[in-house]
């Protein structure tokens, strides 16, 4: 096991220069994610056009895996509709948790996260932004505001 399998250049680059970082104003929806184990916090902002994510940004503080994962996620889902995002979420979940998973070519740069599965303690760092995105998506259509604004990994 080489540390470079976890901290690939793409990850280090997105950690140092996170894309789509900062508040999105105006936003149609947002949600907060929190990993109480390590203190990571992030907020995902969405601007929707019907079922499609027109724009997405995030802000927060976290480790390299959590920051890079969120940055890569915003690049991957901008312009995608909810159904495609659901499919992508499933693929990411397999990538992060299944030892035998072969990176799906459709994952593109997100495949850089495949090293995380060798470090079980770090899987939550990579998945926090995706769970937060799901909450933000649910809130975008939740007229009665019943979806909690915060998700936690614990």
């Amino acid at each position: 096991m080489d540390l470079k399998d976890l901290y690939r250049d793409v990850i280090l680059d997105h950690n140092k220069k996170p894309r789509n970082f900062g508040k999105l104003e105006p936003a149609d929806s947002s949600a907060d994610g929190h990993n109480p184990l390590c203190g990571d916090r992030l907020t995902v902002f969405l601007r929707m056009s019907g079922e499609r994510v027109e724009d997405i940004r995030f802000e927060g503080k976290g480790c390299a895996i959590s920051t890079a994962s969120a940055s890569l996620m915003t690049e991957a889902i901008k312009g995608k509709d909810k159904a495609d995002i659901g499919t992508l979420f499933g693929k990411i979940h397999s990538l992060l948790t299944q030892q035998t998973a072969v990176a799906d070519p459709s994952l593109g740069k997100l495949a850089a996260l495949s090293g995380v599965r060798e470090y079980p303690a770090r899987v939550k760092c990579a998945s926090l932004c995706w769970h937060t995105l799901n909450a933000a998506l649910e809130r975008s259509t939740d007229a009665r505001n019943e979806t909690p604004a915060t998700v936690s990994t614990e």
Partner: protein
Amino acid sequence: MAATASQAVPGPVLDVERVRRDFPILDRTVNGHPLVYLDSGASSQRPVAVLRAVEEYETHSHANIHRGVHALSQAATEAFEGARERVRRYINARSTKEIIFVRGTTEAINLVAQSFARPRFRAGDEIIVTALEHHANIVPWQMVCEQTGCTLKVAPINKRGELLFDEYVKLLSPRTKLVAIAHVSNALGTILPVKRIVDTAHAHGAVVLVDGAQAVPHAHVDVRALGCDFYAFSGHKVYGPTGIGVLYGREELLQSMPPWQGGGDMILTVSFEKTTYADLPAKFEAGTPNISGAVGLAAAMDYVESLGIDAIAAHEHRLVELATAELQKIPGIQIVGTAANKASIVSFTLDGVHPHDLGTILDHEGVAVRTGHHCAMPLMTFLGLPATARASFGVYNTEKDVASLVAALGKAREVFG
């Protein structure tokens, strides 16, 4: 405490290489490197003497205690009550009635919160804690505040992690019913001036609980010299097993408190109309306790005393000073917690590398440190940090371990460029 930065600590020298041979786990490798265990603040490792004592008890002497006339029950009872006497001597309590076996520090504090504080505190009463407490010495008091309407006050610290003693004294008033403080901060290593805190609290009629989880492994603790009313600690941080800990309480206070949990072993007589409770310490030990844990804890205390707590403190103090000096030479390292009086702990951050990433990279090099908020979120908020990495030293650590930590931090800087 013996270990302070301002005074040289003469005294007996520890034969660390011999000590290391007492801890079999130190022979193992982690990720292809020899284990460098710098997480004794979270849980220390156990020497063979403790492992053997537990095995010996379980193999030859186990039965339930206080229950049978048969030989094994008597042997188990003797072992358990013998452990209580061992603990009494270790902290110099007046009587074994003052030694309550619990699961750990957390349970000890909760016992005091629910049995001492809850029945007698009212709206308007105040509990004082410090800004550097572990969650285990914050949350139980918040629960009491919710239950009784009393108020939690927080004595502030400075950025070095030292209690602002004058500010603490200003919080004291006739409303102060209880002061709950750490003896040694688990996140920063600060040693608090317990004796002065106790004296000033007592002058205002307040009772004092000391969370001694991080102090007992590193210093001679004498509860009568400290004058505290309650003292709580865990076995697994002083080279004993997990799941066993101690609440020391002054006898007259423990006598005045109702039982916390009901069940077997804590009663004199039971009928459906009325139950009378057993005397101390059984009153607070409902159910079958962790007998082998108590036996292991007693063995751990024998082991520590055989090495000499002053020798251990002096050894760890040298390591803290060395680690502090070596880490400060690394560009981008900030030491978090620079109190004049510190024990056994060096908390730090490295610019550009989140502590969580640091923990993974160090582990890759076989170096085990704790990373995160150290169950002290209010302290981290005060320091403006989400987390730190923490190296904590035990009796078996060496100068070489410090060198391995420094080398592994170099690796982290390399990875993150």
